[in-house]
């Protein structure tokens, strides 16, 4: 791990740990925005870390930013950090200035709700062909609700037109849906890693029939299945990030394909991971007294966010069918070898 990434993650862990106190989550369930924690995240430069240094950002790699997203998942961060971070980067890349405060981000991957609608400075709209823009959140007629994690969300029936001067053609970077797909996969990977950790701790400590649950073969087999899903979701997310980082021009298909596969796999795994975690935790896991629910409820929200598994599976299926049988293997092993096919 680079020194830069280590530094960034140390900061992220410190901030996210503070934001994962019981009082914060209780307040979130009541609909109260954890303002001070959001400000700490802003003040430490996390929302602008992708921006180049001359634009007052930290100029970190996409991979570094995604490592932060994964850490956010591991702490069940109840804040729209990745949306804001990627939204601000998209606007800057298109030469637009961003409104202050947290952002919602509407991509082409069927996004139909945003977190914390009443707190947002704006909604970044990057769901069209080649254009990005933003509207002030106050201009949007939100239909308010909560997601399965108990976080406030806003939906809309129609978005207002983007005012002149607040839209432009997209910059040269990967599409918003690809970046958000990668970020959401990373968050799912982080939360999954946490759930595995909580489950191992529980089965090692909980004694029934005179021995720890971990001593029962039936329990061991279930944990092994969960660990397999956690491992594959993690490595798939990391590998997709590598594909996005090595994107240049022609490589676009490779990054889009990798992220589509990673988010499809991550969303699909949420069922098995949460099912086994709750099965092994027993009744205590089905309460608000144990931490497990913070993570499983977010997995149920995040598997649908930024395109659910059905959406991404269909994208992958389309790409596979377009490649045809002979092109399927080159598609799977990446753009460089696809080049050899031509």
């Amino acid at each position, binding site marked *: 791990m680079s020194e830069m990434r280590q530094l960034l993650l140390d900061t992220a862990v410190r901030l996210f740990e503070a934001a994962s106190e019981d009082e914060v989550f209780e307040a979130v369930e009541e609909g109260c925005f954890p303002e001070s924690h959001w400000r700490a995240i802003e003040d430490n430069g996390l929302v602008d870390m992708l921006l180049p240094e001359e634009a007052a950002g930290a100029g970190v790699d996409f991979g570094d930013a995604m490592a932060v997203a994964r850490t956010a998942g591991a702490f069940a961060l109840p804040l729209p950090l990745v949306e804001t971070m990627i939204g601000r980067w998209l606007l800057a890349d298109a030469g637009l200035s961003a409104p202050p405060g947290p952002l919602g981000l509407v991509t082409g991957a069927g996004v139909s709700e945003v977190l914390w609608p009443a707190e947002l400075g704006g909604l970044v709209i990057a769901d069209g062909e080649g254009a990005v823009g933003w509207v002030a959140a106050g201009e949007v007629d939100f239909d308010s609700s909560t997601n399965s994690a108990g976080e406030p969300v806003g939906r809309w029936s129609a978005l207002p037109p983007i005012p002149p001067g607040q839209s432009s053609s997209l910059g040269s970077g990967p599409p918003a849906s690809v970046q958000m797909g990668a970020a959401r996969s990373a968050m799912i990977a982080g939360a999954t890693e946490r759930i595995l950790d909580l489950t191992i701790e529980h089965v090692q400590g909980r004694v029934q029939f005179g021995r720890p649950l*971990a001593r029962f073969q039936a329990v061991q087999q279930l944990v*092994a299945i969960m660990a397999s899903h*956690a491992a*594959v979701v993690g490595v798939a997310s990391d590998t997709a990030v590598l594909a996005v980082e090595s994107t240049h021009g022609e490589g676009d298909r490779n990054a889009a394909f990798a992220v589509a*596969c990673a988010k499809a796999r991550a969303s699909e795994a949420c069922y098995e991971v949460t099912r086994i975690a709750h099965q092994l935790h027993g009744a205590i896991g089905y309460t608000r007294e144990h931490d497990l629910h913070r993570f499983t409820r977010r997995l149920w929200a995040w598997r649908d966010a930024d395109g659910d598994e059905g959406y991404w599976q269909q994208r992958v*299926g389309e790409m596979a069918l377009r490649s045809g049988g002979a092109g*399927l293997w080159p598609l799977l092993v990446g753009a460089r070898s696809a080049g050899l096919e031509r």
Partner: protein
Amino acid sequence: MKAPTVHLRFSPAALPEAAESLRSKVRELLEETRAGGVWLADGLSWWGRNPALSRALGAAGFIGMTWPRQYGGSERSYLERYVVTEELLAACAPTAFHWFADRQIGPSILRYGTEEQKQRFLPPIARGELSFAVGMSEPDSGSDLASIRTRAERTDGGWRLNGSKIWTSYAHEAEYCVALVRTEPKSDKRHAGMSQVIVDLKNSDGITVRPIIDLPGRHDFNEVFFEDAFVPDDCLLGNPGDGWAQVTSELAYERSGSERFLTNFHLLRALVDALDWSASPGAQREVGRLVSRLWALRAASVSVAAALQAGETPNVESALVKDLGTNFQQEVPEIVRRVVADEGVADEVVLDILRQVVLAAPSYTIQGGATEILRGIVARGLRLR
């Protein structure tokens, strides 16, 4: 709440340019030999056995790739070998003639063999001329391999073998078999007293090979009986008593390879060929589901390959990849079956492969470590047992 503990290490890895550049060479060789009638993709995938293709691959330097040049290898990296094997699998090339020797026997001989054994066996393996079978399981020892009873007793100039091995694929055709045997009686130490011996199947007395027809109706399984079969001293592999450690040290290589999720890739490819862009959204999702899972499995497998290349022994990670990979392979025909029915696919190529794959599927989660055993290994890696 602290950062979660990382329980399993899967670092993402990209294959180096040197490895990627081998792809086109493998594809060219396969294209030429197929056009030349050397082989055809008969649906058996790597389980098919074709000495002519193995010789062609050997001549091109694609067998024993990681071994020293003095023993016929080409001193390539493990990741370069990874690319070659996955290309062979993706093309559905029949490689069982050299597969076991290339994957595990050769590396064992290289690591534990005498100088004389390395010079005698490795070059012809690398040329694709010498075929090996693997003799591990016995009629009463499947998953519980440490309970084997075949014994080798000291005699003048060598060892005398008595007992039997089972599920020994291609023992009726291979020249040699490496067998795990007891060289000392059973003791309290379950894993002690075992050794590996190289058995000449063609030129030894006291060896009987009984064919076992498998579920799809093919003959590759055998039961091999040893009745006072003689193994000369120079065919003991490694030190007497080290057999268990030798066998288990190769497991990461045996388990994490792409044959654990690409064995029926030809079925998926045929399905993609039979469908077109106008396939229903449901069919597109099913194809996408299989392809995304395959992509993710490969990412995990490449990560293990990179760890092996770095000199690590990712036995737990390998067991995990094998478990997920073989379960995926087992699900492929079931999903294809439904898509084919829903979309009214009448393409005989898909239907024919589907029929074969359904029959082969039960074997995936048994050979090379049964699912339950692999999950036990993962559980031990997580310190649950």
